[in-house]
C-alpha cells in the first residue's frame, strides 16, 4: 500500500471522526430544543392531518404549534375538521385537559337543485370554471350549478358527488369536513358553509328579484314571494336584502318547518341535521 493511499484514507477517517465528535458535542451542550416544538409534534398526532387550513393556520403542524404555545387557541378555535369527529375531539380534549368551545363544525351546502334546463350542449373545457366563462354557463339559469365537478376535484374527502341527470353537485354531510375548499372553487359562488346543526338550506341562488323573466328560467327557482318569512314566527327565516333571498338563522339554527311546507317552489331543502319537531307543536 502506498503512503498516499494510507494518508488519504486516514485523513478522511480523521475528518469524519472530528465532524462526528463536533456534532455530538453540539447536540449535547447546546440548549435543549424549545419545548413547544416537541409538544406541537405530539399534538399533531391527534389532528386529522389533512392540512386543509380550515382553522386559519397554514396546515396542521402550524395549528399544533399555535396550540402548544397557547392552549386557549384550542378552546376558542377548535380544529373545525376534528370537530366533526366526536371521538377524535374527545381524545385531544383529554390530552389537553380542556374543553373546546363551539364544537359545532361546518358543512357545505350547494344552493341549487339543478332543475334548470340546459340551453345548449357544452363541449368545451370540462370544468365549471371553463363553462362559466361561456355566456355564464350552458343552463337557462345563469346562477345555477354547472355540475362539471370543480368542487369534486378539490374536495379532500370525496364528500361531493355529481348527479348526472340534473347536473348538480350534492354534498354528503357524513363525510364533509367543512374545510371550505369547494366554496372558493365554485365559479358560481353556489357553495356556502353552514353550521353542522342547520336543519335546512335554500336550494336556489337566483338573486335577480326584479327580473320577472327569471321565474320561467327554472321550475325550482326562488320567486322571491317572501312567504317563508311571513310564516316563520320565531324569526327562523329572515330576508337577506343584499342577496334578495331568504336566509336562515345561523346562530340558533332553528327549524323552519312551516317555511319548508309553505314554499311554493319547495326549494327549502332539509339537511341531514333536520329533526321532526312534531312532538313540540303537539
Amino acid at each position, binding site marked *: 500500500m502506498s503512503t498516499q493511499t494510507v494518508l488519504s484514507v486516514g485523513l478522511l477517517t480523521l475528518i469524519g471522526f472530528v465532524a462526528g465528535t463536533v456534532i455530538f458535542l453540539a447536540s449535547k451542550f447546546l440548549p435543549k430544543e*424549545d419545548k413547544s416544538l416537541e409538544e406541537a409534534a405530539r399534538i399533531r398526532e391527534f389532528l386529522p392531518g389533512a392540512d386543509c387550513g380550515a382553522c386559519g393556520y397554514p396546515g396542521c403542524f402550524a395549528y399544533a404549534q399555535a396550540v402548544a404555545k397557547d392552549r386557549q387557541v384550542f378552546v376558542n378555535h377548535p380544529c373545525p375538521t376534528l370537530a366533526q369527529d366526536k371521538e377524535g375531539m374527545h381524545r385531544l380534549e383529554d390530552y389537553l385537559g380542556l374543553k373546546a368551545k363551539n364544537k359545532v363544525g361546518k358543512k357545505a351546502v350547494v344552493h341549487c337543485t339543478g332543475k334548470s334546463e340546459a340551453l345548449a350542449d357544452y363541449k368545451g373545457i370540462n370544468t365549471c370554471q371553463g363553462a362559466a366563462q361561456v355566456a355564464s354557463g350552458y343552463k337557462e339559469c345563469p346562477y345555477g350549478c354547472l355540475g362539471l365537478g370543480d368542487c369534486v376535484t378539490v374536495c379532500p374527502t370525496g364528500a361531493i358527488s355529481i348527479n348526472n341527470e340534473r347536473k348538480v353537485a350534492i354534498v354528503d354531510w357524513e363525510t364533509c369536513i367543512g374545510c371550505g375548499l369547494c366554496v372558493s372553487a365554485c365559479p358560481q359562488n353556489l357553495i356556502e358553509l353552514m353550521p353542522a346543526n342547520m336543519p335546512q338550506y335554500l336550494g336556489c341562488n337566483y338573486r335577480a328579484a326584479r327580473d320577472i323573466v327569471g321565474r320561467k328560467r327554472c321550475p325550482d327557482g326562488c320567486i322571491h314571494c317572501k312567504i317563508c318569512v311571513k310564516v316563520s314566527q320565531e324569526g327562523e327565516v329572515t330576508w337577506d336584502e343584499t342577496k334578495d333571498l331568504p336566509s336562515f338563522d345561523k346562530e340558533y339554527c332553528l327549524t323552519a318547518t312551516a317555511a319548508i311546507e309553505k314554499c311554493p317552489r319547495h326549494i327549502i331543502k332539509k339537511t341531514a341535521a333536520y329533526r321532526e319537531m312534531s312532538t313540540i307543536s303537539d
Partner: protein
Amino acid sequence: MSNLIAIFFGMALVNNMVLVKFLGLCPFFGVSKKLKSALSMGIAVLLVMVVASVVTWPIFHFLLVPYNVEFMRTVIFILVIASLVQIIEMTIKRTNLTLYNALGIYLPLITTNCAVLGITFINIDQAYTFPESIIAALGAGAGFTLVLIIMSGIRERLDMADPPLAFKGTPIAFITAMLLGLCFLAFGGIIG
C-alpha cells in the same frame, strides 16, 4: 482593496452562480415561487457559502496540499460541508426558533447544494487567498440571492399573466430564466 471589490462584483454579477455558471439550478426553480421563501433561501445559501469557504480553505491548504492528496477534495469537502450545515441547523433550531422557522427548513436542502460546493472549488481553482475566498463566497451568495429574488418577483407576476395553457407554470419559468440569463451575460462586458 479594489481587488476584493472586483472579486465581489465579479462573483455576484459577471460569474453569477445560477445564470452564468449554471450551479444551484434546483433551488433556483424550486424555491423561487414566493418572494419571501426566495429571500430566506438566498440568505441561507449565502450563510452556508461563507461558512463553507472559511472552513474548506484551511483544510485544503493546510491538510490536503502538504500531504499531496488534493484529489480527495471533493469527498472531504462534501463531508465537511454536510456536517457543518448540520451543526448550523442544530444551533439555530435550539437558540432562535423564529430564525429557524424562517431559514431552518431550507438548511437541510442546501447541505450539499452544488452552488455551495462549487464556490469552495472556485476559491481553490482561482488560487484565492483566505480573505479573497471569503469575499468571493459573499459575492457568490449575494448574486444567488439577487437572482432568486428577481426570479421570484417575475414568477409572482407570471402567475397572474395568461400564457397559453401548455406554458403555464414551470415551462414559462424556464423561458423567463433563459431571458434572465441573457441579461446577466451583458455584465460580462462591464467588468472584464
